[in-house]
């Protein structure tokens, strides 16, 4: 009987970290990025995210998301600089080059188009672009580290059906790509061009047909496996539940709007909206008789991961110096903020490694 021993060993060394922990960690780092304009801290956040992803990314198709997000982040920076050159507010004195100015009608007085582009403008655009890019990279890290299927499993029962719809969408996307490849292959063998508009139009029908077949097969399989079974409900309960969730969402939106406006009642409405939504989802959850098989546990590694991310957000926000001003000055060294971001690298070493797709033998 060596099998149980082997199994225990493998589960002790590698397991899935709760996906919620990864998301809290990543969103904390992302929040920190939006609160600072210090290029050193931004760079460090990217480095920390990259380090953790390279250490704890599992071997799975969805784990490739990080690379995609990094590429998108780079594009974001380029676009930000491009727009700054055309629409940016003309500040600074170190002119790099000048674009022709376009005269705008008087009713667009606040907008400038073209004009001199300065080094100051370039730096500001780069830093602002980097903030958004860093946030994107953090989200990409969460996408690569936390299995989407496991995240959806951890959702409350009330969101179960929405969650399954998301899983199906996630699993069908790669299958559509496989169908595209197959149909293009067949096209070539019929002696037709595989590039160009006509090829895309003509192969759309077989691709969509086979993807639809896939979706219908999956739906049938899920139906025979009890998906969508619900317990009997009192009439009126469904309406109440819909009203609660919708009302809650409106409340959350209004509350966030209020917070942005910096009026005092924003928090109240936000809290009220959240309460409504949570009770609506809770009520919906009562109708779903679903249980969970071996839910991911929340251990000290999860707490550590979440705290390290949120900690970075709190410390960086608290120590953040003001915005970007001209003339530009190198921000004062913020040792506390740097240390808090560095601490967010701890999950790279202290969390369990994800299980191997080919098993632990």
């Amino acid at each position: 009987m060596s099998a149980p021993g082997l199994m225990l060993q493998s589960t002790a060394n590698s397991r899935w970290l709760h996906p919620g922990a990864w998301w809290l960690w990543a969103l904390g780092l992302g929040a920190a990025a939006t609160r600072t304009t210090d290029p050193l801290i931004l760079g460090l956040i990217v480095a920390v995210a990259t380090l953790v992803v390279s250490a704890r990314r599992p071997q799975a198709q969805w784990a490739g998301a990080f690379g995609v997000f990094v590429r998108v982040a780079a594009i974001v920076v380029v676009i930000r600089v491009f727009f700054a050159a055309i629409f940016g507010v003309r500040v600074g004195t170190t002119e790099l080059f000048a674009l022709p100015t376009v005269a705008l009608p008087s009713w667009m007085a606040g907008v400038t188009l073209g004009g001199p582009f300065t080094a100051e403008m370039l730096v500001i655009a780069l830093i602002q672009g980097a903030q958004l890019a860093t946030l994107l990279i953090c989200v990409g890290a969460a996408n690569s580290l936390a299995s989407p299927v496991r995240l959806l499993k951890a959702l409350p029962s009330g969101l179960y059906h929405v969650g399954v719809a998301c899983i199906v969408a996630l699993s069908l996307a790669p299958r559509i790509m496989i169908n595209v490849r197959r149909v293009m292959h067949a096209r070539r063998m019929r002696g037709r061009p595989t590039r160009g508009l006509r090829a895309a139009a003509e192969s759309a029908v077989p691709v969509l047909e086979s993807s639809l077949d896939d979706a219908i097969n999956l739906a049938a399989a899920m139906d025979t496996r009890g998906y969508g079974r619900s317990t009997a409900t009192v009439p009126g309960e469904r309406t109440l539940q819909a009203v609660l969730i919708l009302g809650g969402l409106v409340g959350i939106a209004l509350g966030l709007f209020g917070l942005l406006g910096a009026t005092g009642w924003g928090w109240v409405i936000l809290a009220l909206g959240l309460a409504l939504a949570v009770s609506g989802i809770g009520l919906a959850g009562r109708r779903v008789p679903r249980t969970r098989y071996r839910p991911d546990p929340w251990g000290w590694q999860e707490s550590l991961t979440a705290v390290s991310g949120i900690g970075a957000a709190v410390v960086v926000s608290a120590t953040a110096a003001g915005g970007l001003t001209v003339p530009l000055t190198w921000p004062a060294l913020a040792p506390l903020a740097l240390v808090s971001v560095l601490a967010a690298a701890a999950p790279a070493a202290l969390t369990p490694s994800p299980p191997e797709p080919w098993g632990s033998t």
Partner: protein
Amino acid sequence: MITFEGVSFTHQGASSPVLRNIDITIPEGDLTLVIGRTGTGKSTFLNLINGLVPHFTGGTMHGRLAVDGLDTRTHPPRDLAGIVGTVGQNPRAGFTTDTVEDELAYTMESLGYSPDVMRRRVEETLDLLGLTNLRQRSLDTLSGGEQQRVAIGAALTAGPRVLVLDEPTSALDPAAAEEVLAAVARLVHDLAITVVMAEHRLERVIEFADHVVRLDGDLELEDPATAMAGNGLQPPVVRLGHALGWEPVPLSVRAARRLAPELRAAPFHPSPRRPGGDVVATVRRAGVTYGRRAALSDIGITLRTGQVTALMGRNGAGKSTLISLLGGSRRPDRGTVRLGDVDPAALRGPDLLQRIAYVPQDPTDLFYTDTVQRECAEADTDTSMPEGSAWSRLCELVDTVDPRTHPRDLSAGQQLALALAIQLSASTDVVLLDEPTRGLDYPGKVAFGTWLDRLAEAGSSVLVATHDVELVAVIADRVIVLADGEVVTDTDARTALTSSPSFAPQVQKVLAPLPVLTVEEACSL
């Protein structure tokens, strides 16, 4: 256990019912086999039991069908989920999670089983189907046979009384198919689960069956031997028994072997198969890598004119990759592929069509238009051949096709014929077929075999990837076996099929050590 009372079913928009007046009671704990030619409604019959027909598919059902006392008219599939487990042809298409354990637990989660019951059932099922070593594996990394066993396990964990299997082995290589069928047989024997199964390749399952329902016959529960007697769908061992007048007709290789000792002592002079003519295609030291995995490593093969070559091997051994190399759909990462003296990857348009005919696993991938007629006309434009050539080729292959039919509405055999008709030209060098026989019944395979025979006689080189050893025994001149991206066997069909137990056809198993492959050869002894 399952009671059909005057059940008829008509598909939506169809004028006549596909199943008519079924009155059957399927007893508990037995394995019932549903057989019939392609298009006789096997899947419909099975899906009536799990409620997908008519709740999911639509259509009109008459009569009453009760499973374990539950009327399927008032119980949709999700309410029957705890009583009927369903496994389809392609397990990957029905997976909803990403690891083995989660997949096994899915149905129980939907039905709200308590966590400790789930845990226990998953462990039991892992043991029952021999999946313990795979428990944490990602479903994408499993072989076809393993995936199918996981699908069966996932259907079992909720503790159903009935298991419905729709051609569970049709996509599997011989060894994986045996592994799955052994698991099913064990469920019937040990757990007394009622199994209703449809299967084209009767040679694999008939010996396990307690009853047979012939959908193009009397629609009654019959004893397997009786059902096989008056039936056009006979596996080789039954055909052999009939041809030689054995009584009772054997259903298994073992039974047949007991009846055949004199036959095995007879002298046998095998007629050689076609040796092939000139070399038309060569693959030299070709390697293909997907990510970190080598799909093909240093493959070297040659294809000759006037010969049918069967390409065999486990799922994922590299068969499809080799075919795509020969078709020029991808270039090898290392090594060369030549068709005569050209690189097939450089061929385009009519040049390509003139030299290579390719039929994919799903022939409908090749079809673009909405009628057979227009498909043929487009093919003539593509190949720059006179109008009507594709249509006349199609008529040579199959007797009656309405030119206004939608290509997707054709039967599996007709689709295959249409795919060949639009791909062939007057001078096709190489015909490549990637697992073409999945949906074909025995008569369909016989017709398919004669098409390939004609192509080879006309001088083409035919390469057909398949798992079907019985088909290979009849049609192939030469067999190439791939394993793990390498060629492990490349020899004439008789040597290849007599030297390995997993690739031996039924007749060969009965008559070993004589190198007899087909019923016709056995009758000439």
